[in-house]
């Protein structure tokens, strides 16, 4: 184990420079995020994730945010275990009818101020699952959404761009 830890000290870091926040995402956010809230959060965000029917592709890319290349925590973003600790709710999936209540309850458990990010094409409008008897179709039809990050699934740098826009 010592060998691996030592190598970690002498090797150059894999972590890449931060992407620049995308203009469209910024505009979408400007309306929902006020200066006061930004000051209160101090450039740090706690994120809670709810899978509301995703195929698990979006979850894989959320996991990737924690690897050495993206190192999400360096920006002050933390994934937290409880909605009570969260500022931001990430939602993936077309919101299945079987997950709707769990999503609503998670959302209401987050203290104000709070923001919702709908991640992936399914979370936007149900994606390929739109119109199914088992899907509500789009996170915004269940809880208010502040930012949509598109993609199937959105690659990690797209997710970071969106998050940087949130605290910019």
């Amino acid at each position, binding site marked *: *184990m010592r*060998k*691996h*830890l030592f190598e970690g000290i002498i090797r150059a870091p*894999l972590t890449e420079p931060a992407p620049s926040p995308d203009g469209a995402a910024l505009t979408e956010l400007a309306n929902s995020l006020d200066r006061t809230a930004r000051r209160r959060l101090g450039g740090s965000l706690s994120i809670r*994730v*709810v*899978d*509301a*029917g*995703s*195929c*698990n*592709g*979006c*979850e*894989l*890319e*959320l*996991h*990737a945010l*924690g*690897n*050495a*290349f993206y190192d999400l925590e360096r920006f002050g973003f933390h*994934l937290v*275990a*409880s909605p009570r600790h969260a500022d931001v709710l990430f939602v993936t*999936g*077309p919101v*299945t*009818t*079987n*997950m*709707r*209540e*769990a999503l609503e309850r*998670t959302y209401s458990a987050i203290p104000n101020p709070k923001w919702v990010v709908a991640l992936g094409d399914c979370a936007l409008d149900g*994606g*390929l*699952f739109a*119109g*199914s*008897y*088992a*899907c509500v179709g789009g996170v915004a039809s269940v809880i208010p959404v502040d930012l949509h990050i598109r993609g*199937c*699934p959105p*690659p990690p740098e797209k997710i970071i761009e969106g998050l940087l826009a949130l605290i910019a």
Partner: protein
Amino acid sequence: MTTLSDLVTQGRPVEAHRPWPRAIVDAGVWSLAAEDLRDGRLCLLGLWGDRSAVHMALLDEAAGGIAVLSLDCPAQRFPSVSAVHPPASRLERTIRDLWGIEPEGAPDARSWLDHGRWPLIHPLGSATPRSEEPRPYVFLPAEGESLHQIPVGPVHAGIIEPGHFRVTASGETVVRLEERLGYVHKGVEKLMEGAGLDHAAKLAGRTSGDSTVAYALAFARAAESALGAEVPPRAQWLRAVMAELERLANHFGDIGAICNDAAFPLMLAHCGVLRERALRTADAAFGHRMMRDRVVPGGVAVDLADAGIGAIRLLIAEARRRFPGLVQLYDNTASLQDRTVGAGTLQPALARQFGAGGYVGRASGRPFDARRSPGYAPYDRLRLDVPVRREGDVDARVRIRISEVEQSLDLIERLLERLPVGPISARLPGVGGEPAEGAALIEGFRGDILVWLRVGADGAIERCHLRDPSWFQWPLLESAIEGNIVADFPLCNKSFNCSYSGHDL
């Protein structure tokens, strides 16, 4: 005469079904098949509903044969298989939920995927509007002194798919785990009805995101079998390169995540780097990190350029440089082995009874790998040793994955060396006036995926069933966790890494 062919000859053969035989049998033969399953002469590959019919796919492991038996159910009922063969239970509850076809004599009358919240009942069958309110789900009882229950989920603490686990514990020891799934049911099979092949292939590729290549491949091969399409050799080899890259990325991720759940994040950090490199290589070679929608009916959507081949070779070199050191780290860390060895043991007899595929089965003595048997191109042209262990614990499931990482690196190298030249896709022939049926069994990273479909005369999907390997792995987690401490549940669960989305459909 083998057990399976004997059953098939007692039924009426369906000519339009490929590549394996399908026979329409009567209730007597259906029940005989159930008894063969009970006695371990056959293995259940799938059990699903259709318009006033039920089908079951069977594997004769000794003879290597596969067949589908079908039973017409004009009265919307059929003799239960789970009455004698428990692995069929959740499949039958699903048939009842989706189709309203009743498994007569089934031991479990509770609904499974239907949580009482869909606007319709029996959405694939009568699809009548629901009027009643959802009823509370009754968990199985666990009785005894000082037992307590811990409800977990559907929303979990980490970035995990949703599902509910009801743990009954005595102190720290789990005495019963009961799963309740279905939270991510999206109605994939209903959306498939009437979809064109291209659209249906995309849906198949989103059944379980981590296995998007394997699902797209299983769907494509089933469709190609139905239509009698010939896929160009280069496409078949490129599909295998993608499938092995997918396996690599997932196994890297799993090995790291399992060790992380045993409080050893160093492995997660290093394996996470390898996984990321695999995803970036996939992006460079095939234009998408997860290679989504790259396998299509008739071939593949993108060719592999020289730059892509170079990127894959770099990945193999990097993995060979880094991975052995990580295996050594796993081997030499006593505190880690202390958690993984002897934890979450799955008995080989149960793995065999349930026909558990993938690392779950292979870590518990079941040497099944769909790439070898029934086998498919191009694996029939490549040497493939299936790693098997008998310990059945978390450690064994890690070690199977380690062996498969090494094997996939070798396979990709050989695939690239012998990559045929030529076209990457072929036009699919039309359906000749009559509906055509096809099936495929594909080895995803998690185990064997079964796809069965019927294409109508208009070329659209009439019925498509997708069976995730998790159907036969989830129930076994309930057994493997028994007697372990509650704190080891995440570790055992991760070592199974069943798909919620693939199971819930």
